[in-house]
Structures are given as structure tokens and as C-alpha cells.
């Protein structure tokens, strides 16, 4: 394969910056694409070249394959890194890149096909001997089959649509007598959502742990794993805190899950960075959930404990290189990542776009901030509101927790509402500190995680607020005095003075 010289990053924000950083280190030219809403985004400014690919909505810009490829052609980019989200798991895009003669930095389209569709992936995994959540490996022919199967695996069970996800055609059933009505509504919902009323059944796992294994393959048939990540701290089914090693894994479990993950990846001839997601039940049985055929948001924690630059490996493998390391890498120390969002945890995590007035990111030993924003930047309301991934490393888990708390206290980001305080509360919570938290943790503890006031800090804050008001009044007074003196006193138009005083007070 020819050497890559110029990489177009078909993404935006912090992940585009992350990918470009490695490209720059490797001496590769970088090309950004941007929507009209992202002209001032940091990734547009950070790249060597930048091309506009359409209006703000992503389906008219970042998701338009032709526009991305046209930018690649204009710039002469010989490779495209998709980041995550957008076109990163779109097999059609992979094929279009191939046709255009541009290297897609990711797995082949065939591996995406094999893992992209739920029941298909499930069957592939069952064939490869990978444990999946107990259930049927094909849709039921009729209700009696479903009834018999439920009796066999035991309630609670999940009815799931074979044709698609997103919660549509999905029903949790706790008792046998509720099965028939759930069966009917699931089927009709599946039909209207996917035009396909096929449903299948899985054992319902109550508040499992979400543990995933990072895998990496090359074009020479080598596949290795780079240990696990614990991702059970989820709000509204979205990860907000990730760590590695998982506090619930034993070395034996890590080896077993790693072996299964490599087997799963090999079954679909996987190439590049990928992640096998598992659910782990309270008895520490683990079940295949899905494969993400791309880089993950939480890849920095793996980088911290392995010393590997995963994006550098992606580029290496995309050029036909052999994986630099072929045996398991023992994790060194502990790493935690938090996702900083422009959102308000108190109002059900409502996104809170707006203009950032000031930023000072934490730093110092073993603290890494991957962000895509800057002071004065307006976070647009068209895209995911994640503005930074903050990650830390320390020799032990407890030290990593202490370091992350310190880093969160240092993080100053004003002008918009963020989840920084909420993240700090998670890191302070005894269940998190204990390490045995499941996917129900954040939902269950929501009220507590919104935080309580420290009366001493509230008092200091009140003093600060009152003195601030006083200082502004003083400043306004000084301004008036100055203006009056400058124009000879009484001759000044009161209208003017009013205007100035108001200006001095800002928009209050």
C-alpha cells in the first residue's frame, strides 16, 4: 500500500483535533471539513487545509458522502479518518472511498456489514462461539414459540425487534401473563418503525456492568486486544465516565474476555481499531452486546495504561503495516476519563449551547485534556454537546480518582452551563469510589449527584456576589465622574449620560 501523505478528517470538534494532533506528529498534512456553522470551530483553524462541505445540519454536510469525497479530491488527500459518529460506521462510505481511490482509515466494509446489523452480528458471534445474552438466534415463527422460549430461560425477558434498534419494538416483560400483550405491541411497533415485524427474545439483565474490550487488527491477519474499559457510569444510555482497568475484573476474566473479543474480531476479518462491548451480570458472566467498528470516545484511558497512540496505530495499519506489538500489553497503573458536556444535569441533561466566555483547562502531572473549544467560541446547537474529554493517569485507582477530582476543580469554563460539577459529584460518590457500580448507578443516584451546597462556600459566594455588585457600582460611578469632568459638568446631555451608565452596567 502507498504511504499516506495527507489525511482528511471527516469529523469535527475534539475528535478531529485529536486525530490531527497525531497526523501532525507523523508529518502528515491535515485537511479539515466544516459545515457553515463550524467556520470558527477549532478543528477548522487547526488543520493545514479546510473545506466547507455544506450547511449546519449534519445530514447536509458531515453526513454527505459526495461532499466529503469532493473535499478529499480538491485537497489531494490520500486518506480519510472518520473519527467517531457521522460516517465512521457507514459501509457505503467505505466503499465510496475505495471507489474514489482514497484510503479509509478503518475496517473493511465487509467487517462493518458483519457487525453493523444487530441480529446479523448476533448470529455471526454465536457461530464464532462468542457468548451472547441468552436468547433466540432467529425471530420466532409464532407466539407459542416465544412463550415456550420464555419459560425455558425464565423471566424477566426482553422482546427485541430484529430489524433495528433505538428502543423501538423493544419490551421488557417481567411475568408470563404479560407476555402476549407485549408480543403484540412489540410486533406492531417494529412493523411501523422498520417495516418488519420480526421479533426475538433475550434474557433481561438487571443493571449489568458495561465492560468493553479494545481490539486491534492488521491486514496480515493479526488481531490483539488492549485490555478492557469499564463504562457503566451512564446517563440516558450514554457513557460519561470511563476507566481502565475495570474495578470488577480479575486477571482471569480479563484474559477470558480478551480472548473472546479477539475471536469475535477475527470472525469478521477485522482490521484497525474496534471495540467489543459486553454486558457483565452480577455473577460476572459476560455476554457480547455489540461491536463498534471505529475508535471510541474513551480511547484515551487505554492509551494512558498501554503507552500506545491508537490513532498512530490506525494510520500504520491503514498503510499495510504489521501491528507493532503482537502480545498482550499489561495495563500499567489506572486511568479515568470524564466527558465534559455543555448540558444542564439539573434539567434532564438538556444541551446548553452558547458562547464560552473563559476557559482554563486543568494541567500538571498526568492530566490530559482533549477539547475542541476556546474562549470566545460559540458552541453550536447542531451537534453533540461534548466539548472535552478529560483524562488522568495514576499508579492506583484511588490516586486516579483523587487526581480527577483535583483536575475537575481546576477546570474553569464560563459562559455556558456544563456538567463539570456533576462529574465531580460522581467522582466523590461512595458507590463510584467502591468500584462496584452498574449501569443503573447514575439514574438511581441522580438527585444526590446534583450536589449539595456547602454552607461555608455559599456564604463566601454571597460575599463575592455582593462585593462584585459594589465594585460594578463603583466603576459606574467613576465613569460618570470622569464623563462629567471631561465635558465641563452641567453642559452634558442627560441622555448621553444615561446611555453611558447603562453601557457601563452591561446588560443587567
Amino acid at each position, binding site marked *: 500500500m502507498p504511504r499516506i501523505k495527507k489525511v482528511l478528517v471527516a469529523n469535527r470538534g475534539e475528535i478531529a483535533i485529536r486525530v490531527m494532533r497525531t497526523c501532525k506528529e507523523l508529518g502528515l498534512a491535515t485537511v479539515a471539513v466544516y459545515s457553515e456553522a463550524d467556520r470558527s470551530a477549532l478543528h477548522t483553524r487547526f488543520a493545514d487545509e479546510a473545506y466547507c462541505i455544506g450547511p449546519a445540519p449534519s445530514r447536509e454536510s458531515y453526513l454527505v458522502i459526495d461532499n466529503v469525497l469532493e473535499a478529499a479530491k480538491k485537497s489531494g488527500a490520500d486518506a480519510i479518518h472518520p473519527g467517531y459518529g457521522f460516517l465512521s460506521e457507514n459501509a457505503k462510505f467505505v466503499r465510496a472511498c475505495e471507489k474514489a481511490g482514497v484510503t479509509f482509515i478503518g475496517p473493511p466494509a465487509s467487517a462493518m456489514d458483519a457487525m453493523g446489523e444487530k441480529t446479523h452480528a448476533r448470529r455471526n458471534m454465536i457461530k464464532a462461539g462468542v457468548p451472547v445474552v441468552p436468547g433466540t438466534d432467529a425471530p420466532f415463527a409464532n407466539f407459542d414459540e416465544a412463550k415456550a422460549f420464555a419459560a425455558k430461560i425464565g423471566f424477566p425477558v426482553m422482546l427485541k425487534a430484529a430489524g433495528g434498534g433505538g428502543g423501538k419494538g423493544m419490551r421488557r416483560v417481567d411475568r408470563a401473563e404479560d407476555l402476549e400483550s407485549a408480543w403484540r405491541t412489540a410486533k406492531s411497533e417494529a412493523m411501523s418503525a422498520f417495516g418488519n415485524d420480526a421479533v426475538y427474545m433475550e434474557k433481561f439483565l438487571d443493571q449489568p456492568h458495561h465492560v468493553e474490550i479494545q481490539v486491534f487488527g492488521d491486514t496480515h491477519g493479526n488481531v490483539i486486544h488492549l485490555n478492557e474499559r469499564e463504562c457503566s457510569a451512564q446517563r440516558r444510555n450514554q457513557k460519561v465516565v470511563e476507566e481502565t482497568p475495570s474495578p470488577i475484573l480479575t486477571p482471569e476474566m480479563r484474559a477470558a474476555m480478551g480472548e473472546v473479543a479477539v475471536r469475535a474480531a477475527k470472525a469478521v476479518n477485522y482490521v484497525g481499531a474496534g471495540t467489543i462491548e459486553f454486558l457483565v451480570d452480577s455473577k460476572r458472566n459476560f455476554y457480547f452486546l455489540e461491536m463498534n467498528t471505529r475508535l471510541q470516545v474513551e480511547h484515551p484511558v487505554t492509551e494512558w495504561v498501554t503507552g500506545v497512540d491508537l490513532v498512530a496505530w490506525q494510520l500504520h495499519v491503514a498503510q499495510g503495516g504489521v501491528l507493532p506489538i503482537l502480545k498482550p500489553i499489561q495495563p500499567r497503573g489506572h486511568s479515568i476519563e470524564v466527558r465534559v458536556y455543555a448540558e444542564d444535569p439539573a434539567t434532564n441533561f438538556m444541551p446548553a449551547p452558547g458562547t464560552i*466566555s*473563559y476557559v482554563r483547562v486543568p494541567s500538571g502531572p498526568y492530566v490530559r485534556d482533549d477539547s475542541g473549544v476556546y474562549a470566545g467560541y460559540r458552541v453550536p446547537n447542531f451537534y453533540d454537546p461534548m466539548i472535552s474529554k478529560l483524562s488522568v493517569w495514576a499508579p492506583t485507582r484511588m490516586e486516579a480518582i483523587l487526581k480527577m477530582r483535583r483536575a*475537575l*476543580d481546576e477546570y*474553569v469554563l*464560563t*459562559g455556558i452551563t456544563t456538567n463539570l*460539577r456533576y462529574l*465531580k459529584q460522581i467522582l466523590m460518590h461512595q458507590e463510584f469510589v467502591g468500584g462496584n457500580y452498574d449501569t443503573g448507578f447514575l439514574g438511581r443516584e441522580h438527585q444526590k449527584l446534583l*450536589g449539595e*451546597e*456547602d*454552607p*461555608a*462556600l*455559599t*456564604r*463566601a*459566594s*454571597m*460575599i*463575592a*456576589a*455582593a*462585593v*462584585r*455588585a*459594589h*465594585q460594578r*457600582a*463603583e466603576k*459606574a*460611578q467613576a465613569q460618570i465622574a470622569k464623563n462629567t469632568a471631561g465635558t465641563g459638568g452641567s453642559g452634558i446631555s*442627560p*441622555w448621553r*449620560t*444615561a446611555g453611558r*451608565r*447603562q453601557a457601563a452596567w*452591561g*446588560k*443587567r
Partner: protein
Amino acid sequence: MARSTKYFVKNLAHKADAPAELEVEALGDGRYAVTFHSPTPSPQGPLDGKRSELESLVLPHGAVSMIVDGQSYNVEFDEKGDEVGVLLRGQLTRFDVADERKVRMRAATAAFSVEGKQMITAPMPGKIVKVFVKVGDEVKEGQGLVVVEAMKMENELKSPKAGKVTEVVAKEGATVENGANLIAVE
């Protein structure tokens, strides 16, 4: 302005509670004395009339470095309308801060009922600095009508409703008493 001013600080997380009263006295050179007075017990702990001396340095980007009894607080402010968010040692608290003048202004505004003819009255003794409208003008809700100066600060009185100006009693330069009629909007 007065060297000592009273501020009413309401914690927006406890809206039902009466605001705390903080008297701020400028001591010069960025030093201030703050005394807590509170009419009712407060969830912010006993507000016992204790006087704290402090130093407050305003930084170029608008944040403040405040040192109270040796304690160093790096304070960032987040202002949205009348509210101010105070970020200090990782805690963000939202307050409504008003001085006495503003509190009276608000009381005056709160007394408005927006139906029918509305008479805008002076919320405190002061001087009419500017009258923006004349009889017959169409005004929008929230449009500035008149500026009254009191306690050496100016405050703009706004129309409580959309309508037409039917009376203009206020005269620029005139001194008015508390409650004096200024402008009517119908």
C-alpha cells in the same frame, strides 16, 4: 456613592427564603468590609452580623481573586440577566443581587397590573433625568419611558404593557417624591 451600601442577596436554589442582607463598605485599595444582616434564619448557616474584612482584586477577564481572613478564593462569575452565578472552589451558586434602590424599583414594578391604564410612579424620591416619550406615542412592553436618578444611580422605568402614552406628568430635571405619578400608558 455611599461608602457603605446594603445588598439583598437571594440564593436562587432557595427562592422561598428571604434574601440575606449584606452591608458592603469600601475601605479603599480593593479592601472591603462585609457585614451580614438577615431578617430570618437561613439555610446558609447562622448569619450573625459578623463583619469580615476582605480584599477583592478584579482580574482582566472579569474574575475576582478574593482573600478573606487569609482564605484565597478564585471567583468566576457567570451573569445572565439579573442573576449572577458564582463559581468558587468547584461550587456554582446562583444569586439575585439587588441594592436598596433596585429592591424598591422592583416593588414598584411588581405593583403594576398590566390591564387597563397603568400609571408609572416614582419608586423613591429622586430627580427625573430623562423622559423618552410624549403623549400619543405607541410603546411596547418593556420599552423605556423615563429615567429617575436616586441615590446617585440612574434607573430606567419601563412600560409594563404595550399601549399608548396618555399622560406625561414627569418633567426632565424635576425633583419628585416617592410615589409621584410620572407617566400613564393605556
